[in-house]
């Protein structure tokens, strides 16, 4: 094996291991892991199952909120959410029909929301403004209409 080839192989390995370790550091030390909530729900009984029998915005502490949300073709419930600036918001979500995606443009909030599963993702909103929430998984003929907003005051 040539010298250059060895150098290249070492660099390649270092890069791959580097990415791997960095992803691990972020996930386990900084708690920045991807949304991975593990809880199931009967997708045909969402309306009768807690907490989704009462979707809405709930204050859970000082500057802490929980948004209990259902996704269904082609809307989010609740919609047009308002929260004060600086609050940490946990979205607890499930789908009542097909697979949807929950994305807030301009943030790193991005999670798959699937029927049969409860998904959670947390975000702190420091900057006041109106954020666009949209469905980013194709869910049917009205998919391009599935959006709402979250206003940070």
């Amino acid at each position, binding site marked *: 094996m040539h010298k*250059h080839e060895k150098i290249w192989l070492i660099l390649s390995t270092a890069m791959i291991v580097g990415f791997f370790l960095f*992803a691990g550091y972020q996930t386990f030390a900084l708690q920045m892991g991807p949304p991975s909530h593990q809880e199931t729900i009967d*997708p*045909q009984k969402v309306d009768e199952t807690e907490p989704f029998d009462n979707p809405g915005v709930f204050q859970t502490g000082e500057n802490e909120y929980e948004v209990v949300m259902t996704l269904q073709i082609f809307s989010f419930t609740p919609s047009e959410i308002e929260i004060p600036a600086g609050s940490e918001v946990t979205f607890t979500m499930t789908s009542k029909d097909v697979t949807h995606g929950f994305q807030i443009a301009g943030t790193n909030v991005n*999670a798959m929301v699937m029927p049969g599963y409860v998904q959670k993702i947390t975000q702190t909103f420091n900057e006041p403004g109106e954020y666009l929430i*949209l469905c980013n998984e194709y869910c049917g003929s009205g998919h391009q209409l599935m*959006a709402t907003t979250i206003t940070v005051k």
Partner: protein
Amino acid sequence: MALAETIKTKANNALGVNPQDAKISKSYFTVTFLALLIGGTLGLVQGLNRAGLFELPSWLNYYQVLTAHGLLLILVFTAFFTIGYFYAGLSHTLGGLIPKVRKMVWIGFWMKIFGFVLAVIPILMNEASVMYTFYPPMAASPLFYFGLVFIVLGVWMAAFGAFVQVANWRKNHKGQHLPILSFFATGVFVLLFFSSIPVAIEVFMIIPWVLGWMETINVMLSRTLFWAFGHTLVNIWYLTAISVWYVIVPKVIGGRRFSDTLTRVVVILLVILNIPGGFHHQIIDPGISETIKYMHVFMSLAVGFPSLMTAYAMFSVFERTGRAKGAKGLFGFFKKLPWGDVRFLAPFIAMVAFIPAGAGGIVQTTNQLDQVVHNSLWIVGHFHLTLGMTVALTFFGVSYWLIPRISGRILTKKMNKMGVITTILWTIGMSFMAIAMHLVGLLGSPRRTSYTTYGDNATALGWDPYLIFLAIGGTFLIVAVIMQVYSAFHLMFRAPKGEEEFPIAEEEEDASKTPFWTERWSRTILIMLIVVAMAYVIPIVDFIGDPGSPPWKTW
């Protein structure tokens, strides 16, 4: 071995092309380029719509067009090319196909066509606007899934045919290494067969459910089975492309192959590591723990290793060839490359595109980075680099010599020039599109969404200037598509008669002997199965028993 290979190459070239084998590849290529024409046209329709320039008529919806575009280009164009190309390679390097194999690949051909027709009918009737990923609980017409069954069976026939051909050759050539192009073919067909098993299981879960025999379906299980297949498929097209880079391109530039041992190791690694790679499509899914997802970061990143080796190999071949031709200085070898030869130019641009494409792949396998781009147009930009540039341009490059070769014709100077122009137009169009998609995706614009401003939302309106480039890119691309399709059929039916070379590069003269363990496919497959089990047993067992979903038609 180098001498033996020289003799073999000469013998094969002297034998010429078996007309029966040529007919097989020509039929596959005919479908390939028809799929490109229709799929490409549908792509333009989407680009124009997404840019807000074109409203689709009421009888045709965006998602129908998108389903057909995806199916035609990610499955039909690629699968038919790959099979046509490797069967030509098997015939050329293994002394002609045996009659049984010919029959098998023909049966496979018609099964795929039949399956495809079955799948297209409901798409045209808007009964299957479910995308090529067809995630349950969206439920298409049963006909769509029956079509998929026949497509998979047809692919299996082609794979089994290749295995029979290779086994037969090995029986008659004990102790010899499989010729390198056939070695690549074996790797590709092994992967095609094993990766389509999970999707076959998924489709057999779906069929009783869409027929109403089962009330619900396990959504996460079917999604996981899909991606074990879906991502591997893309990497199979990529493995097909790199066979051209390792075996064909060195000959086209007048050089020799990179180390035979390392080439075979790359193939073996790609076979072993590929199937678990599909998991990175599920990084932000519920129902899978962070620990499992983290383990998969490693499994997916590992695929980067053979790709980085390939990058080294290619530039090493270019440099050596250039130096042998008298190039001086660090980058002098660049001037010695045959830039005006489409057989080189197209795969070369394909390789260059794989640099950002591979980097993008690393982004997607790394959990937190993936979360930023998942399901945005960034992803679409990514696979227009991987498939649209890396794979498609390599395939185009092959078409300029392989189609005339099997048609008993030659690539004229004029057609070569046409190919160079096509390559440049394609590169411009795809670059516009892919760059714009990457950028607007970072801003949050979602994939698989027809033109929308979400009620004139300011954020969404800010994406419009980028989306215009989808239409501009699409316009360049459609011109390139028409030229490429014209060239393919011209070279098949109209070009002057003659004998075009099948360019297979030889090993370096001072090459060391390739160890024979590289020929032990049973061991490679066993290791592959162990890796697949490590990747999938825990999550799949976890999903079993989860509450299921009834079917939905939401379009």
